[in-house]
């Protein structure tokens, strides 16, 4: 017997995914900026879903406060740009800032358990929101524009922002994919399934959770950067809104918690719903909540989790298959 990780299907699909990424990179060269802006929104959703899934699906960390990092990314960009940094460099710096801040926050937040952690993170996000509201230089409660973006011609700006979104999404998804394929990946999935049993097999649960928390800090920071780059105006009430967490939970639960592919599908679905029901409003939110609850009850594994279970299909392989070695006799 030997261990195989790739199958023909998964090789084809992973190759196909890479091809899609390359094709997406060409979109701004061919299509209208309206579509480019919409696709940027989609990439932000994919990134957020993947990060929330990394936290909840592998670390068992149910956060309703990831908007704290979205806000740090968004306001960090404005802050650095106001201090004379080129906007796109400011965006990279703001992403690094969000990731760096996540480390000290983890020292506090990861001491909390389950519901305490969820609420604790929400409190942290609200505190950040209040700090911004008190700072006149950041526009206080009324919001602020990233005026430095005016130096770019709108079509180019949209294209640059889209490419940055694509780069961030690819970087974070590839990082998560490689992490899950590494020996640490098995440990992370073990934590997802049974934390205490994982501990008794030598998994340092606290350190692994910190790794995921910081990764998600960087990733959500990057998403916040993209929000301000895409909309050019932010206010504390929206970037620090708990609605972000609701979206993330929706995408991950519907797509498939603890699967690599599921959250991407969930993000595409949410994006489709958002573009269809453009009016928004309370009923749209009620609909989202009801759908998430329905999935939790009827398809607890989400769309992809169910497909994976029924068909044994793994497109982006983070797991292992034991197969018979070449030339080996079939075991009796």
């Amino acid at each position: 017997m030997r261990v195989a990780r790739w199958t023909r299907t998964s090789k084809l699909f992973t190759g196909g995914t890479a091809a899609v990424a390359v094709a997406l990179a060409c979109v701004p060269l061919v299509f209208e900026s309206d579509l480019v802006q919409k696709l940027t929104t989609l990439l932000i959703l994919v990134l957020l879903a993947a990060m929330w899934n990394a936290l909840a699906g592998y670390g068992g960390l149910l956060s309703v406060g990831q908007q704290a990092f979205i806000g740090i990314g968004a306001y960090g960009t404005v802050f650095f740009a106001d201090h004379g940094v080129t906007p796109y460099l400011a965006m990279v710096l703001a992403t690094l800032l969000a990731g760096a801040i996540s480390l000290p926050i983890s020292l506090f937040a990861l001491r909390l358990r389950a519901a305490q952690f969820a609420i604790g993170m929400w409190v942290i996000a609200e505190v950040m929101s209040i700090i911004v509201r008190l700072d006149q230089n950041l526009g206080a409660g009324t919001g602020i524009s990233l005026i430095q973006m005016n130096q770019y011609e709108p079509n180019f700006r949209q294209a640059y922002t889209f490419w940055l979104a694509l780069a961030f999404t690819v970087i974070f998804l590839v990082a998560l994919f490689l992490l899950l394929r590494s020996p640490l990946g098995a440990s992370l999935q073990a934590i997802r399934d049974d934390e205490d049993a994982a501990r008794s097999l030598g998994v340092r649960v606290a350190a692994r959770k910190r790794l995921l928390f910081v990764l998600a800090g960087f990733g959500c920071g990057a998403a916040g950067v993209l929000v301000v780059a895409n909309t050019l105006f932010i206010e504390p009430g929206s970037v620090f809104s708990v609605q972000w967490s609701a979206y993330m939970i929706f995408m991950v639960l519907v797509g498939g918690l603890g699967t690599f592919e599921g959250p991407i599908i969930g993000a595409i679905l949410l994006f489709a719903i958002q573009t269809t029901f453009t009016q928004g409003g309370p009923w749209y939110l009620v609909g989202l909540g009801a759908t998430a609850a329905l999935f939790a009850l009827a398809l607890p594994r989400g769309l992809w989790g169910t497909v994976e279970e029924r068909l044994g299909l793994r497109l982006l392989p983070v797991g292992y298959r034991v197969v018979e070695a070449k030339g080996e006799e079939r075991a009796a």
Partner: protein
Amino acid sequence: MEARTDVVLAAVDVRKRFGALAVLDGVNLDLRPGEAVGVVGPNGAGKTTLLSVLAGSLAPDTGSIVFKSRDVTSRGAADRCKLGIARTHQVPRPFAGMTVFENVLVGATAGGRHRGREAYDLCLEVLDRTELTQLANRRAEGLGLMQRKRLELARALSVEPAVLLLDEIGGGLTDAESAALVETVAGLRDRGIAVLWIEHIVHVLMQVVGRLVCMDAGKIIADGRPEEVVSQAAVIDAYLGGGP
């Protein structure tokens, strides 16, 4: 008592209370390399609690745990596993969403610190020894109870421990299955691994252990050669509910 340097794992005057109940009431126990020790006692005697305290998943109120002459009382379960103490759970706790092979791989990589091909080969060998090879690609949630118990053992073995703590993995096995389990444990013992095995089915234990410990109400009431321990009045009382 023999020289203590020979001892691989020791519990020294361990006490643990849950509320008003003294679950462990001053337990002293030594394990030597290549020694298989059986633990018997009525329900609620503190057997599983002792195992959890040894494995580090439960902290004792007082007393200490010494592994290879190092005090490991303050070290958590993960650290102790990396040092070489592996355990199974009475109620199997498989990683439901992972395959049987991936379950075992966690022990080999996290606890056993193996990487790549080395880890794979170790896992394949352990699966073969525990007769799980045919189920290697099955998600663990689909396994039956007996298969889950075998998986518990396989995961613990993949750590390549110096001390193996088994918690009732023999219950419900057929004669052939328990014979295979006895053979596995004997093999481990002969390779120099210290095995502590909690089991209700005394006649299975008697086939492999060289020493039997009987617990009752948080205390060790007998510790010695199996034939002697089972014939002691106190042990019979504890099981049959006589009492003074």
